[in-house]
């Protein structure tokens, strides 16, 4: 999520209203006001609206929403006469380039900070951590056009931003903090992307770092924007969002010629949308006229067309408009969620529990009836708990998560008993007897199924108690079973039994082995029982 700092004075000047009105209404366009400070507010916007990641963008949207200035904002672009060449060798490395000239900027420390944080937010939301899009902003008066986007040998050097010494690009990847952060995006290529001016001065080593030469300061008047990446649409959106934000701040935008094409145009995209379709999805009454008014509030250009259509001009900075329904959502926002009629659907349907949950409920009833208390252990655990402490060999079906968060969360549980013993460890200081059960999902191979387990601990817990528990639960679930001497090393030899039903081993019960008790730091005997719920007759096949 992007949290945007909105300085009140600047925001009020751009929006042309007071901060209270703005902050009261800004959640209604889709945001959370995180903090209200003396001179600014921090507001969180959703990742699908990178056009709102700057005070300029927020002001533009709020002017529309508050009715101060509606309809499509105009962003005239004239050619700068500047050209950019692209080295064909970049085709496999980082092929897409977008650029623009932004003239007549007037920076102070705050507005430099604001443009830098817009740039960072775009790197995150649109650029996918700079892999898809990386943005460079340069003081254009320090370099000489035309500019060249080239594939360069890694041994070439320049002075990177925030450094005083010349470094080769390989050194930058090793030593510069940004180099280390983003090295993975380029280091496997034989040549690295580089932007130079006509005198071969380095502007930028995308997507890593700019050169120190073109650093933007409060004295900067004209900006060259470079945007490189792997995805044409994403690069273009990033250029449009920055250019229109700067235009909102008072700058003029000029296009650059790349491969014979003038870019950016900052022109809207047209869509003709159906009014009845929108009305039907939202559950409101709409005419082409009323819908156009709502859309203009959201800064679209909108013209009623015929009886049931609206021609919509989507502003160039709206990265999120992929489908007509995206426009319909804006109609709903302009209409106001609080004004929508909330009424459950009328169709009659009958509720039906999942059979798996039904059997889990019956199992709960059996255990609670026998005085057992339900616990709900985590499903992520470790081999140590599941197997080592249990003296068991690792289940062949156990799934290992690839990047566990900690050594306690490396595998998905394959059974419950080890987790139940962990519970007893946790509750050693609590009054005995303790009788606990659990029912729920376990996973073997890629299959999830349900098992249930019960443990009882107190000075007299023994095999007979486990047997009686198993017999009671299995009887209540109509599982016809036989028993046979078990070889499960988690239990004491001669005090353990496998449960056989339908020719398969479906569970085990007995007295936990003292070695296991010791491993779990338990001091009293434990009678234990676990079984597979799939043994219940009529259980759903999964």
């Amino acid at each position, binding site marked *: 999520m992007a949290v945007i700092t909105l300085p009140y004075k600047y925001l009020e000047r751009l929006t042309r209203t007071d901060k209270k009105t703005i902050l009261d209404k800004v959640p209604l366009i889709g945001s959370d006001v995180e903090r209200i400070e003396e001179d600014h507010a921090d507001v969180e916007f959703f*990742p699908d609206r990178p056009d709102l990641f700057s005070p300029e963008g927020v002001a533009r949207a709020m002017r529309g929403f508050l009715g101060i200035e509606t309809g499509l904002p105009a962003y005239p672009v004239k050619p700068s006469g500047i050209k950019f060449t692209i080295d064909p060798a970049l085709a496999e490395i980082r092929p897409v380039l977008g650029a623009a000239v932004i003239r007549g900027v007037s920076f102070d420390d705050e507005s430099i900070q604001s443009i830098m944080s817009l740039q960072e937010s775009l790197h995150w939301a649109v650029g*996918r951590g700079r892999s*898809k899009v990386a943005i460079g902003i340069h003081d254009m008066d320090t370099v000489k056009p035309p500019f060249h986007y080239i594939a360069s040998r890694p041994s070439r050097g320049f002075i990177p931003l925030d450094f005083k010494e010349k470094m080769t690009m390989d050194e930058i990847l090793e030593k510069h903090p940004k180099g280390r952060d983003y090295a993975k995006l380029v280091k496997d290529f034989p040549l690295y992307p580089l932007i130079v001016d006509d005198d071969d001065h380095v502007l930028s080593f995308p997507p890593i770092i700019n050169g120190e030469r073109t650093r933007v300061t409060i004295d900067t008047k004209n900006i060259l924007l470079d945007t490189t990446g*792997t*995805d*044409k*649409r994403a690069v273009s959106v990033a250029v449009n969002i920055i250019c229109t934000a700067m235009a909102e701040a008072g700058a003029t935008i000029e296009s650059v010629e790349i491969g014979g094409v003038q870019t950016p145009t900052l022109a809207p995209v047209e869509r003709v949308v159906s009014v009845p379709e929108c009305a039907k*999805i939202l*559950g*409101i009454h709409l005419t082409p006229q009323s819908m156009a008014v709502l859309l203009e509030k959201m800064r679209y250009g909108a013209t009623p067309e015929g009886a049931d259509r609206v021609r919509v001009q989507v502003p160039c900075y709206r990265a999120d408009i*992929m*489908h*007509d*329904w*995206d426009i319909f*959502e804006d109609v*709903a926002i302009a209409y106001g*969620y*609080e004004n929508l009629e*909330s*009424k*459950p*659907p009328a*169709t009659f*349907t*009958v*509720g*039906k*529990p*999942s059979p798996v949950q039904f059997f889990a*409920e019956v199992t709960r009833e059996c*255990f*609670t*009836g026998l*005085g057992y*208390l*339900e*616990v*709900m*252990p*985590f*499903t992520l655990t470790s081999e140590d708990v599941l197997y080592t402490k249990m003296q068991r060999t690792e289940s062949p079906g156990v*799934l*290992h*998560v*690839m*990047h*566990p968060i900690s050594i306690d969360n490396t595998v*998905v549980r394959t059974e419950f008993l080890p987790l139940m013993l962990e*519970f007893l460890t*946790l*509750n050693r200081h*609590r009054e005995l007897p303790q009788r*606990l*059960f659990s029912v729920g*999902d376990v*996973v073997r191979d*890629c299959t*999830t199924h349900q098992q249930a387990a019960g443990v009882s601990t107190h000075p007299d817990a023994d095999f007979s108690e486990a047997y009686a528990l198993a017999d009671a639960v299995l009887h209540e679930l109509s599982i016809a079973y036989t028993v046979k001497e078990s070889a499960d090393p988690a239990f004491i030899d001669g005090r353990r039994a496998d449960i056989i039903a339908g020719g398969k081993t479906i569970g085990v019960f007995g007295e936990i082995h003292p070695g296991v008790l010791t491993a779990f730091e338990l001091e009293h005997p434990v009678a234990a029982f676990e079984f597979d719920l799939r043994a219940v007759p009529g259980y759903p096949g*999964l």
Partner: protein
Amino acid sequence: MADLTQNEKRLLATLEKEKKADAPHIAAVMGATPEAVVQWAHLAQDKGLVSVERIATTELVYTDEGKSYAQDGLPETQLLRFILPGTQLADLQNHAAFKIGFGQLRKKGLIKVEGTSVAKVPETSTDADEAALRNPIAADPKTKELIKRGILQECETIRNVIAITPPGLALAQQGLDLREETGTLTRDQILSGSWKTANLRRYDITKLPKKAYPGKVHPYQRIIGEMREILLDMGFTELYGSIIQQSYWNFDALFQPQDHPAREMQDTFYLKETLPLPKGYEKVKAMHISGGDTSSTGWGGSWKEEKAEQCVLRTHTTSLSIQYLAQNPNPPVKAFAVGRVYRRETIDTTHLAEFEQLEGIVMDKDVNFGNLLGILREFYNRMGFESVRFKPSYYPYTEPSLDAEVYVDGIGWIEMGGAGVFREEVTAPFGVKYPVLAWGLGVSRIAMLRLGLKDLRLLHKSDVAFLRETPAYRKSRGGV
């Protein structure tokens, strides 16, 4: 008048005659031990029926050493008896009492040592000491000397003198039921009818017995159960499915782009296992790349089969909803699931890597966004939250999207869950032609509010005391 135990009654009856006596005497009369009598007397004293007077007296008694001296004489007396004219010091040294007695003889000046022989000092004796030994008097300095020497010791004895008080006497004179008390009512008493005359012991109802702990479902499970019941009542079909999902069903089928940050290793638990893609996956692929046959542009770029085949621990139960829709593309569909979902988060008091999610969908010919608000309002109202409001939000697979907030007294508006209409990009590849309303909520948020938990981990690593003490039913106030 408080209830009397059988023993208190017997004591009163005895005292009615004896009036006042010490405990051993009463014990002898009652055929009990003095200790028991004192205990009963104290109980009766609490009720004002008897008085117990504790009298401590000090007696002088012989120590073990003193006992032998009382018989054989003090060591100095024994030595004096042994000394005859001409007795040699060496002979005296062989006497058993020499060690203690000789010093005493010297100290008291009873003997004289002349060269190697010893002699009595005339006109002296130990008679006064012996008298003090046999008839000790506490004030006698000789007796005090014997105490100091460890021959006599002071011994405190306690007498409990028990007397009936006027109210006790009045009660006793009214007549006491002295029949033997019955503790546990027996089968014999019931069958023979002797229970009619039996004196059933009365219990002190203010005294709590040893606690009994019922077997119970987990308080969290109870909340899950409540939500399930509400949705079943509202006509929803419950879904169940695997924890392990293909990326295809968890992400791709929900139009989540392959380069979406939520799909990265930092946020999702991946497994090395893969599963083959289902038939017809090409429609999903086309949707991602170009928007298929809809008005969508798609995400553009490429879409890789290998990425979709990879298995993950499901990050939401929406993966179950979309599979159910794919199997049931015809209206009406109303379904929900509650299940464990996984996010690769660092675990702390308010974040877990696994938690329960409740998720529901409604697909029908004429359903709309307003109906979605209606369903949510109804659900939260039934959960006890009277005020519900909605605001715009963003989810990758719904459009329009919203967040639902409920008002909780003392806390304010709390975000409860997200919802929206499934994007056409999600539903179209599966032949679903009508809008799908979908919503999800984190069950643990409500559990935290209801159970007053400060640490979410306690839901899964529970203290047995917490489980025992949390009542099965609690009156809900405004949903919490």
